């Protein structure tokens, strides 16, 4: 089980800010593939992976990062702070 968080337009496209996901995905990319196969709204949110950033346990990570041991994964567009 892993907590999956969504922010900004990723959250809007998927329609929820957070969910708990039962998964055996080995990497972030595997989890994304699993989510995309679920429903059209996930497919829409993850249509362009280059437009999405990922954090594992609140640290920026890559899509090929392993999920083993992670409690929380977050998906969001490039940040626009400042």
């Amino acid at each position, binding site marked *: 089980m892993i907590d999956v*968080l969504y*922010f*900004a*337009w990723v959250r809007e496209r998927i329609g929820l800010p957070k969910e708990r996901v039962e998964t055996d995905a080995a990497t972030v990319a595997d989890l994304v593939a699993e989510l995309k196969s679920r429903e059209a709204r996930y497919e829409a949110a993850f249509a362009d992976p280059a437009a999405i950033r990922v*954090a594992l346990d*609140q*640290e*920026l990570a890559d899509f090929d990062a392993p999920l083993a041991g992670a409690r*929380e994964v*977050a998906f*969001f*567009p*490039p*940040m*626009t*702070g*400042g």
Partner: protein
Amino acid sequence: MSVVRVQSAPFDLGAETGAFAARAAGAGAVVTFTGLVRDDTGDLQAMEIEHYPGMTDRAIRAICDEAATRWSLAETLVIHRHGRLAPNELIMMVATAARHRADAFAAAEYLMDYLKSRAPFWKKEIGATGAAWVAARPEDEDALGRW
């Protein structure tokens, strides 16, 4: 020492700058930068700033810690707001204090470049005719390359 505050409430730029300078013992220079809600189109009603509560504070602290290893800094301050802001409201400020101004200027620029692209905030512009997320600009990502 770094102070990081992520808050929805407004802040008083003058009071914050004064208090920051007062605690920057031994510093000879204070540089501040302030970001405002800019209305590019003339019909902006509000800017909504979303953030990632668990990650925001630690991401900003990591940026401040890195700045402290690169320059000789007496103090740093980052205040960043989230929530719904009106045009011309203050979004955020950074302040840096150092013995000499070169370190204070460079560190303030570094903090701003990294806050733009590595602190988990997202801005949405609410206009009279609709709302749109502010897209990250390639120049902002490129700016990190100069450090």
